[in-house]
């Protein structure tokens, strides 16, 4: 099945009835290809979470529409058939450990698959697999999720989503507050899901290094609008522009930018540390001459 996500002139208004409602999304038009790895960046409050919640039909557009494969979500879409649709779109929320509630880890992970009509034994199989994927020891299966460490809870919550075998996986700052090792492991896991299972990955993040390292497409949001779309080279080659939109630079680009500010001419679009190293060597040689 083709899971292209098409977002068409979508706006979202959080209407709490107050006198000055805010458009959290303004006329967003965006296409996300099937099997791609997309990062969504933007400073706090720019509408990233609001945008990704539309892809899971947790929010409905105020105007405009969005389609995922054959499924279309419009302002007047009824709440009835959403469940079937959500099965294909897994969503890991900001601080997903808040959603844990079962007596045991395994039961919590089985919750999603069971809701989507899997049998007990299949759900358990999926749960055990998911635990293995996220790097949780199977000995933890019968423990209470509330007795785990923060990082372990995060993994249980992720396993709960992965066990549903989604085709599109949305992650809203999945590694916020984790230690560097867990961070790396989780980012690796997401990438593996993308490569091995052809999942479309939509990652909301503030970690520019991850953006550069993993994504095919980067979406920059500011004040509810999509202000730039491109691959990471295109996005990060203009430090001034990024700073203007209150975004950080990836470490390589930051280093290069600092060098250029100090009067050394290094090219702006450096995708990885090797390019940076090469550029520095070249600058050094020029200096020597």
């Amino acid at each position, binding site marked *: 099945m083709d899971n292209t996500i098409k977002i068409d002139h979508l706006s979202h208004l959080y*209407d*709490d*009835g*107050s*006198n000055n409602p805010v458009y959290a999304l303004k006329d967003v038009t965006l296409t996300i290809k099937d099997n791609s790895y997309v990062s969504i960046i933007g400073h706090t409050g720019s509408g990233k979470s609001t945008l990704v*919640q539309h892809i*899971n039909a*947790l929010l409905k557009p105020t105007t405009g529409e969005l389609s995922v494969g054959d499924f279309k979500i419009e302002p007047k879409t009824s*709440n009835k058939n959403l*469940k079937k649709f*959500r*099965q294909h*779109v*897994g*969503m890991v*929320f900001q601080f*997903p450990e*808040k*959603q*844990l*509630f079962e007596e045991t880890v395994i039961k919590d992970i089985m*919750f*999603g698959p069971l*809701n*989507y009509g899997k049998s007990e034994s299949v759900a358990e199989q999926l749960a055990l697999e998911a635990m293995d994927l996220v790097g949780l020891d199977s000995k933890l299966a019968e423990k209470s999720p*509330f007795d785990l460490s923060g990082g372990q809870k995060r993994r249980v919550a992720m396993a*709960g*989503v992965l066990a*549903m075998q989604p085709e599109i996986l949305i992650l809203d700052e999945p590694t916020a507050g984790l230690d560097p090792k867990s961070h790396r492991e989780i980012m690796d896991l997401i990438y593996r899901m993308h490569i091995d299972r052809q999942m479309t990955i939509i990652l909301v993040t503030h970690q520019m290094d991850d953006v550069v390292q993993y994504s095919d497409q980067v979406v920059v949001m500011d004040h509810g609008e999509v202000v730039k779309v491109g691959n990471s080279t295109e996005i990060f080659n203009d430090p001034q522009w990024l700073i203007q939109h209150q975004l950080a630079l990836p470490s390589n680009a930051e280093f290069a930018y600092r060098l250029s500010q100090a009067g050394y001419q290094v090219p702006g679009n450096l995708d990885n540390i090797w390019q940076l190293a090469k550029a520095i060597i070249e600058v050094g040689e020029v200096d020597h001459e």
Partner: protein
Amino acid sequence: MIMSNFIFGRYLPGNSWIHKMSPQAKLLISFFFVLVIFLANNLISYAMLIVLILATIVLSGISISFFIKGIRPLLWLIIFTVLLQILFSSGGTPIFKWGIFSITDQSLINGGYIFIRFLLIIMMSTVLMLTTSPLALADGIQTLLKPLKRLHFPVDTLALMLSIALRFVPTLMDETQTIMNAQRARGVDFGSGSIKHRIKVAVPLLIPLFTGAITHAENLSTAMEARGFTDSEHRSKYRIYKWQKRDTISFLVYILVAVLVILVRK
């Protein structure tokens, strides 16, 4: 969404006359108004109170749709009470009789009045809630309860508890929304299906909500203790809400209407 029907703890900042009144005055006037409602007993007196509350609403600058939303969750309670009143009250000339039920002209009128009373009380408390920040509200209550201190009633502690509780209402509402979304994404269907199903889906919502609330409480108490909190000190305040001229004027208007109500009632 479910939460948006909920008026409690939903302060709407503003700059109106009502917003600028001190919380203790607003509380006092609200209580006073509720008392006056029970004095009204005929059309003119109720009409006066309706005009008064409408004037208050206009003055608060908050759109009327908010008030209608505030009534909606209580609608069934109101209808039930009004029906009870209509079906079981006695006196007056019967219009309709069936077993122990009888509808009389008097009971219809009484039912109507009860309906108006409900509306008036809800409107008033909605104005109070929407124009007063939770912290100001707690402060107002503290000011009003101050006389009880002489009886060694722990007014300050109570006010602190209240303001903390009120402070966490929006947090918990946000959290409810977040958790509902997270469980929806895991295939839970909230708000549809049989009663049994609805009770079952409350578990994945309530357990995270409670554990979250307990975590908040623990963190907060640790933080307070770490900063040397004890409940015996005399605390100074960052904001001080003094009784102002506008409070007196507002109160006088309400007293005036109350006097009129007493004059025109049967």
